[in-house]
């Protein structure tokens, strides 16, 4: 057979076979996946900007601001858990580091808030290296419990030290000021008066939308983000492909830490007072639930999860009492029945789903090969069984997240 095959290949002009069926043109414009997501994002952002004109009560603005800060936190944890696949159970510790560093610098040392940003980032990077450095070399589940311990260390330390104000925490954290002007002064624009809280709300909205959502999304699509996902899916294979897995994991960890620190700084400004009780393990678990329920690694899912976790206790008062029990049950149920979350990272818009083609078109035998040779050139086109087209499967129903 082998010499015959050689002969046949020598005389056959090698060319790619014609496609068996025409591939549809990818959708473009607002109906396509990226176009639709951009449109949705723009609409959501427009709604954020319009919110103070719809309801400018102090209560609404306040819970909207906290919800946005939660979204920022969730996007940071999404980098760690969703993209890099590292389970961080003490995530709120970095939030605490950011809040305390900015709180101490602005109240004790009277720095303006913007000057505390680099210090916050530096502190979070250091904390990320200290906690991630030793544990990221080990099994990933060690990281989970060490981060849990680390979260407790930060909370107890804040509770015990004098510089952090002990159990009562830090009060009177100033808002952002630039030179003589601060958000507290308000702003008159086009005959409308914007109060300090509304201005701060806008500030948070812009920071969260640009740094938190677009920034994380772009990081995830870049070289580093692809490395995160590769390490998450198969660490050994990623290493074999030349990715420095340790560096990749610690970079995800540090970026998650910095995002949490920035969110902590925003939260410190928003609440003007912080205390160790705001950084209990419960909140780490709450953020994790938001990410898991929404869909690990999925930006829209995580945003929905973050909004749900932060707004549900406000909107459903009776729910607040039961929420941790319900969240616990939900975590188990989601992991068993829908591990990719409400809006999975691989979700495809319903109108873009490809359907199974009716039948494979019959293929003509290649003329250049003789009829006898063709039967021997392995499983020829005509003899090929019609497999299910992999694209016909609905990725959204493909319940398993591959880690």
């Amino acid at each position, binding site marked *: 057979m082998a010499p015959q095959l050689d002969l046949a290949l020598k005389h056959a002009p090698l060319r790619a076979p014609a496609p068996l069926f025409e591939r549809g043109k990818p959708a473009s414009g607002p109906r396509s996946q990226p176009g639709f997501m951009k449109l949705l994002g723009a609409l959501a952002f427009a709604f954020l900007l319009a919110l103070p004109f719809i309801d400018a009560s102090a209560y609404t603005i306040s819970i909207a601001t906290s919800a946005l800060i939660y979204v920022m936190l969730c996007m940071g944890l999404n980098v760690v*858990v969703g993209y890099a*696949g590292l*389970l961080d*159970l003490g995530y709120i510790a970095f939030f605490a580091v950011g809040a305390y560093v900015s709180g101490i610098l602005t109240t004790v040392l009277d720095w303006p808030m913007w000057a505390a940003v680099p210090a916050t980032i530096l502190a979070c990077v250091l904390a990320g290296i200290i*906690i991630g*450095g*030793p*544990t990221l070399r*080990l*099994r*990933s*589940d*060690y990281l*989970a*419990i*060490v981060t*849990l*311990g*680390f979260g*407790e*260390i930060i909370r*107890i*330390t804040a*509770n*015990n030290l004098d510089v952090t104000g002990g159990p009562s925490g830090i009060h009177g954290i100033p808002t952002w000021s630039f030179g003589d002007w601060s958000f507290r002064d308000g702003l008159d624009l086009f005959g409308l008066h914007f109060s300090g809280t509304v201005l701060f709300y806008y500030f948070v909205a812009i920071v969260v939308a640009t740094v938190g959502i677009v920034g994380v999304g772009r990081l995830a699509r870049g070289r580093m983000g692809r490395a995160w996902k590769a390490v998450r899916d198969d*660490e*050994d294979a990623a290493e074999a492909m030349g990715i420095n897995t340790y560096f990749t994991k610690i970079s995800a960890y540090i970026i998650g830490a910095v995002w949490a620190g920035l969110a902590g700084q925003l939260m410190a400004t928003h609440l003007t007072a912080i205390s160790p009780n705001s950084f209990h*393990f419960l909140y780490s*678990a709450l953020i*994790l639930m938001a990410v*898991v329920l929404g869909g*690990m690694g999925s930006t829209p899912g995580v945003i929905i999860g973050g909004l749900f976790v932060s707004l549900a206790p406000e909107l459903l008062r009776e729910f607040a009492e*039961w929420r*941790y*029990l319900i*969240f*616990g*049950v*939900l*975590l*188990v149920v989601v*992991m*068993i029945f829908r*591990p990719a979350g409400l809006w999975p990272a691989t979700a495809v818009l319903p109108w873009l789903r490809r359907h199974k083609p009716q039948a494979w078109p019959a293929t003509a035998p290649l003329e250049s090969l003789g009829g006898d040779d063709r039967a021997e050139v392995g499983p020829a086109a005509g003899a090929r069984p019609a497999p299910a087209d992999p694209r016909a499967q609905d990725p959204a129903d493909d319940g*398993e*997240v*591959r*880690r």
Partner: protein
Amino acid sequence: MMQLIWNGLIVGSFYSLVALGYSMVYGIIKLLNFAHGDIYMLGAFVGFLVLSSFGGIPAAMSIPALLVILLLAMVVTGLIGVAIERVAYRPLRSSPRLAVLITAIGVSFTLEYGIRQLFGPNPRAFPVRLSSESFDVLGMRVSLSQLVLVVVAAVLMFVLAHIVERTREGRAMRAIALDPQAAHLMGVNVNRVIATVFFIGSALAGAAGVMAGAYYGSIDFLMGFVIGLKAFTAAVIGGIGNLYGAMLGGLLLGLLESFGAAWLGGEWRDVFSFAILIVILTFKPTGLLGARVVERM
């Protein structure tokens, strides 16, 4: 000095009991059972329920009554452990590890806040007070009840070591820990053995819960959270997956904590033991008696 050692040994024996369950489950299915600390809490609440339904117990009878309740609580928590494995962990056995870890956290939350809804958020007084008659040994004040607690813990650990080393079930456990698939091919009923491990581990944690309830005198729904962390630390110190390591690690952690708290002040106790955990993971992640830690594929 001797008093510190004795206190450390008592607390350490609780840690050991909880760490044993952690270590066994980890050794056999490589799962960090976050809910394990909450099983300890459940044990304390089972003991609380039974004792309160009996009404008061005379002080003279407190130790025998406690032993009976210990057994009862062990059976109940053991069954709860088996149920948790069946409902939450078995469907996910072939899932990625992250999914199982998250499920374990969900189970932990469900247990904690389920108990909170049932018994309320405030600490409850454990309705048995141990007699405080005590005698001096080598300069330590040792009360009879403390002695009983330590002896019970030692007996439980001895029984466990016997089960794992000398019985057919124990051999099956060790086989599964080495290679679950090969054990399955050799005719070991893997699901049943894993259920047994969950039963034993949870029963030990439940026993520790009852003992801790009697020792400290008050229980609350979050009491399992910190001890779960501590028991994990103990298991890591001894080498996770190794039974004797868990016992040794628990006692060692109890002693270290006792000295650390005396040296730094009680409010730094938890920070001290978590710092030990991080230091050990940095310099000797296999623990004192553990084998090399390999990433399971």
